[in-house]
């Protein structure tokens, strides 16, 4: 009788890479829903259009690399990349902006390094930064949230994808811009005078951040990633903001709560810096990785030229991750100080 010979272990746990990716996609839904509520269907259209491009690109690259594309499409990883990028893009972006972004993410961010698992940088953030540097005008055109302006319908939004004139988005300075540019007003007065500010941070933005926080906590509960990097990032950001709050003076950088609930903080903390491929490896390493990102996010927001601090902070720390790994190897069994 011919027996099948395979090495141990002979069993396998239930989790697959595809399932992990699907859960990450699922966890973005609350954030996407809130974004859609406050800013209209723009983000949703970004995601659908970007996703189609990403799947086509992945298929094409795998054919060029002479591999069966099916397992690579079925692992959902390229959809995660494109979805994360498209969440970060301004709603009502033109089709070419999304296409260039997705191409940069998938090709430049991932495949030039050898595909999934080999990319030293977060692919979504690579695409985002390429766009931010190349097309700063389009990338800073965030529509005002519901309550400050009318939110367009689905057909208007769809037209904006191919015809920039169809929906002439009124853009407005974001709360992060206002806080950075503020020189004359106390934080308290700023909140009262500028309609962009809500209860804790920007109108809409605070709920968007809370929604991504909810999705992230669910992933944490599902043990898709460990708590180390997100918690370290949020603590470091909060600590820096606490130090720079300056009692709410006109020089203030904003309160910890403002920074936690502004911009891409929660999205970054739970969906971007938790990308395992490009982050530090050990739990100790992830604490350092996350903390440095949190610190950089604050510094870039308050002192830098770009309000979109998360993308730059993540890419800089992606560079540093292998270096952090060298010094944060956990103590192997039998290598520690003898315990009594």
């Amino acid at each position, binding site marked *: *009788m011919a*027996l*099948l*010979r*395979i*090495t*141990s*272990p*002979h*069993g*396998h*746990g239930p*989790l*697959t*890479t595809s*399932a*992990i990716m699907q859960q990450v996609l699922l966890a973005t839904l609350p954030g996407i829903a809130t974004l859609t509520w406050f800013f209209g269907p723009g983000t949703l259209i970004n995601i659908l259009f970007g996703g189609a491009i990403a799947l086509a690109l992945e298929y094409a690259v795998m054919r060029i690399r002479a591999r069966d594309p099916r*397992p690579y499409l079925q*692992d959902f*990883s390229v959809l995660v990349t494109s979805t994360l990028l498209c969440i970060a893009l301004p709603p009502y972006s033109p089709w070419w902006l999304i296409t260039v972004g997705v191409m940069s993410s998938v090709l430049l961010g991932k495949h030039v390094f050898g*595909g*999934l*698992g*080999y990319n030293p940088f977060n692919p979504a953030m690579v695409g985002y930064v390429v766009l931010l540097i190349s097309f700063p005008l389009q990338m800073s055109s965030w529509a005002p949230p519901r309550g400050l302006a009318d939110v367009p319908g689905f057909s208007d939004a769809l037209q904006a994808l191919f015809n920039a004139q169809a929906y002439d988005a009124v853009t407005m300075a974001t709360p992060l811009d206002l806080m950075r540019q503020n020189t004359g007003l106390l934080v308290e007065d700023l909140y009262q005078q500028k309609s962009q500010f809500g209860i804790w941070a920007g109108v809409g933005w605070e709920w968007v951040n809370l929604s991504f926080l909810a999705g992230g906590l669910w992933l944490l509960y599902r043990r*898709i*990633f*460990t708590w180390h990097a997100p918690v370290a990032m949020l603590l470091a950001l909060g600590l820096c903001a606490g130090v720079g709050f300056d009692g709410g003076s006109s020089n203030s950088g904003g309160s910890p709560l403002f920074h936690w609930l502004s911009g891409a903080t929660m999205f970054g903390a739970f969906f971007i810096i938790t990308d*395992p*491929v490009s*982050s530090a*490896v*050990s*739990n100790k390493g992830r604490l350092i990785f996350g903390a440095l990102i949190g610190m950089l996010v604050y510094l870039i927001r308050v002192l830098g030229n770009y309000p979109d601090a998360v993308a730059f902070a993540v890419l800089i720390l992606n560079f540093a991750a292998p270096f952090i*790994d060298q010094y944060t*190897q*956990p*103590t*192997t*069994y*039998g*290598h*520690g100080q*003898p*315990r*009594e």
Partner: protein
Amino acid sequence: MKFIHNIHGGIHPPEEKALSRPGTVLDAGLPNTLILPLSQHIGAPAEPVVAVGDTVLGGQLVAQATGNVSAGVHAPTSGTITDILMHAVPHPSGLDNHCIVITPDGQDRWQTLVGISDFREIEPSALVDSIHAAGIAGLGGAGFPTATKVLARAGIAIDTLLINGTECEPYITADDTLMQTNARAVVEGAEILAYIVGAQTILYGVEDNKPAALNAMQQAVTALGNGEHREVLTFPTKYPSGGEKQLIEILTGKQVPSGGLPADVGIVCQNPGTAVAVRDAIIDGKPLTDRIVTLTGRALSQPGNYRVRLGTPVSHLLEQANFNPGKKQRLIHGGPMMGFALASTSVPIIKTTNCILAPTAEELPEPPPAQACIRCGLCAEACPASLLPQQLYWYARAKDQEQLEKHHIFDCIECGACSWVCPSHIPLVQYYRAAKANIHETRQERQRSDRSKARFEARQARVEREAAEREAKRAARKAAAQQKAATADGEDPVQAAIARAKAKKAQATLNGESD
């Protein structure tokens, strides 16, 4: 109650223990042939002391231990030696090895067994000799000769004996069954072992998924009543808590230093089956010739725990357990986590066989093709040795031996927890085995080249030394000759020689004339 320590990592695979109905021992019967490999343990193979055609009695030595790390082999029943040959044996390599074949005569006659009534009156070293003579090797899996293990560190005091009744591998219930049915023998064997190694304390570790075994052990320990330094401890079920190093940490909080032995922290660890074998060897004088084997998996319709004579072919056992093989059938020697797939059903049961697992394809499906590693870190969460398996994987692929050693690849116990959790189905353990083998090869090569370098340098030194000696001798001769010439007071040596020759010739002529 002693405090139970937690270990890093671990996994919870489906236990599947009930499948083999622990608690009952079935008889596997007497097969037509018994195939006894000479190497059923770690160390030097045994050497046959019988010839083809000899008749042997049960319990008779058929192959003796060679050297210190070795164990002898005994006939499990009476019969005739019908062959000594290369035969398929249970080994991951699937290669053949030397075996003695006995054809039983069916009468099961045994030689007279002489036991010891009170082991405390005997010197520990004499008891070790008895264990050695009984051919006992660890029954838990690795098969280290027990007599060697209890002597492993001369000069280090052992304070604790651990009896490892964890049996954390899924499916296997051999130790569970042994503890349920023969707890008293386990405790008696443990007392003998503790006496030999000089341990004050005996700790019995039983995972909390074996309440019946735990209860039986507690009763047996209380019944024997050897005081407060005897404890049966239970702890939450988690794979691989039964790893020797892991159990030591769970029960004592100590870690065995890397590259060291449990003896370095004053501990000796033994399997319950080994303890019973020691008890039988000392008290009954019976060598190790049978053991309990779990036959399980859904390809068997009569799974269970069988008392099996060593050397029984697996095919004989599969018949007993009603084997219905599938198309792509796997037979696993050991458990699903660390066991290896057998190449043939003709291999015999040996001292380390605790389980033969015959799963269906649905039960343990073939692994799908591996996907890319996304460094998700689930492997690092699962690793009981606190390694970074994802990093080891990358370094193994890059054949970066320096980084592999820096990341402590040799502390990997190959438990398979990382491969089990890997969402990309990467056969991580296989990479580590290959990497370890590569590093060993490199080390051996380095040793070989170091040796030849040393040899070359020694030869070079010798040649130079000899040349120098020759030179010195020549210089000495030359000096001596010059010295001699100088002492002849200015007389010309050539003239002197001619004069001597002439004088000799004249003398000869003179002699000739006188004739």
